[in-house]
């Protein structure tokens, strides 16, 4: 061991109050006899201090509120003991009375809005109104998080051979894997999504325009309903998404890894080598505010990273920093513009 390493060890041990018997004397001796001891001590001390200030974790802090909500969901879905507690409703369909009223209303009006297959035994309906995104726990332990405007129809108990629910609108599914491999199906007007145990988002596009599916974990089979008007099946793995365009009658897998269809629920947008133009497109869609690129050459710049649903401004600033550019809000219109910078 070199003297330099030994002296660094002793200095570090002293700073962390870890000196062992005899090491104090060794350190004092080094300080007395080595003419460069003072300089070494000052530089090692400065490095230890600077390393603390320049924390490699940077300024990042997770979204505590979203994280606690996520943990609560996992506590409920992965450990049934929560639902069995006496102070919690056995089936936590909704968190507040208002959505319960909504669900009752939906049950009464079921024939008006649902035109799928004939009702099975003990079918329930859940509906999400604005300001509420209720979570439905299914009999098999699977969880469905409804986005505002969505309606879910599901049996109180599943049959022995299949688990099928029907969805209008958009929802994020966390499906329990059953030991007998019983598949789980989500039916929409146009398509059927079949899975074994995974998390994914299904969005039945408004106006009958089609259906989009994003997979977060596991894999799914996204198939058009066999109604004679269209056919096609696509297999999607984690991080993949696909979209059925009803007007063009075309089912296409999104190029490049992207599973941001569930961003409204997961709270994050994830990218791997995604062109910046697509990142901006999705941010615009999420926040409903225009964001454009000043420099057209940026459009194809690949971006890898995660953006969180804080504010559009924060996300654009983060992108600008990555590419060395600027994010500016245009006076009057409220739209944003990214300028300067270069591909990295």
């Amino acid at each position, binding site marked *: 061991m070199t003297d330099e390493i030994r002296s660094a060890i002793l200095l570090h041990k002293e700073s962390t109050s870890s000196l062992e018997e005899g090491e104090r004397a060794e350190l004092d001796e080094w300080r007395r006899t080595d003419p460069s001891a003072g300089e070494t001590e000052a530089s090692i001390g400065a490095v230890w201090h600077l390393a603390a200030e320049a924390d490699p974790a940077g300024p990042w802090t997770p979204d505590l509120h979203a994280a606690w909500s996520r943990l609560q969901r996992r506590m409920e879905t992965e450990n049934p003991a929560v639902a069995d507690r006496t102070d919690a409703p056995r089936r936590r369909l909704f968190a507040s009375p208002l959505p319960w009223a909504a669900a009752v209303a939906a049950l009464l009006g079921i024939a008006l809005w649902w035109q799928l297959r004939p009702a099975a035994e003990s079918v329930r309906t859940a509906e999400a109104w604005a300001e509420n995104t209720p979570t439905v726990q299914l009999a098999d332990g699977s969880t469905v998080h409804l986005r505002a405007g969505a309606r879910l129809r599901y049996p109180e108990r599943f049959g022995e051979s299949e688990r099928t629910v029907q969805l209008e609108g958009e929802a994020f599914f966390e499906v329990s894997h059953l030991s007998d491999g019983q598949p789980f199906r989500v039916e929409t007007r146009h398509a059927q999504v079949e899975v074994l145990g995974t998390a994914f988002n299904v969005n039945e596009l408004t106006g009958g325009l089609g259906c989009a599916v994003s997979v977060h974990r596991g894999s799914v089979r996204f198939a058009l309903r066999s109604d004679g008007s269209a056919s096609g099946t696509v297999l999607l793995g984690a991080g993949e998404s696909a979209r059925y365009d009803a007007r063009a009658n075309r089912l296409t897998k999104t190029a490049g890894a992207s599973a941001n269809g569930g961003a409204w629920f997961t709270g994050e947008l994830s990218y791997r080598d995604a062109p910046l133009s697509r990142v901006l497109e999705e941010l615009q869609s999420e926040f409903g505010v225009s964001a454009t690129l000043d420099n057209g050459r940026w459009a194809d710049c690949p971006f890898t*990273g995660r953006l969180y649903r804080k504010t559009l401004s924060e996300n654009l600033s983060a992108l600008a920093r990555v590419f060395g550019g600027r994010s500016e809000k245009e006076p009057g219109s409220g739209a944003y513009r990214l300028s300067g910078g270069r591909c990295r």
Partner: protein
Amino acid sequence: MDRLDWQQNPEKALEEVFRSEYVHLCRSALRLVGRSDVAEDLVQDAFLEVWRRRENLDFRISVQAYLRRAVANRSLNYLRDNRRTTELTPEISARPGHLNGESPTETAELQRLISDTIDRLPDKCREAFLLSRYDGFSYKEIAEKLGISVKTVEKHIAKGLLSLRNVLRANHFLKK
């Protein structure tokens, strides 16, 4: 938060610990694994494990201490199974603010140098340095986690310090 709280209202007890510890634990995991999404997953899993074991918690050690160890262990296990990624992410690449005496530009450069130098250290050296500098684990605790001797931990940390000093000197952040 004591045993009674955990028995009477475990969800509230967990939430209290979660709100005080989650951010700190996520940042600890992020330094080791280099990805914020993975860091959050690891910390969530540690909390979920506490929840599953809530009826058998050992109150001789605090839940906070358990979580701190669990997150470090889970992060190191993750690194054993997955190559550490150093890909550019907004959270890590963007570091506003500045240290005492430096301009924001100098501060950003200093942070980049320190982060890059730590990233380039050999695995065990980097892990020992991070666990000591940012999480305050003792030599003995680090040795147990990394499966190496205390003497080796001492050497790793010293080498990390000297590597950083050399880089900062070469870039004129420290006098030669």
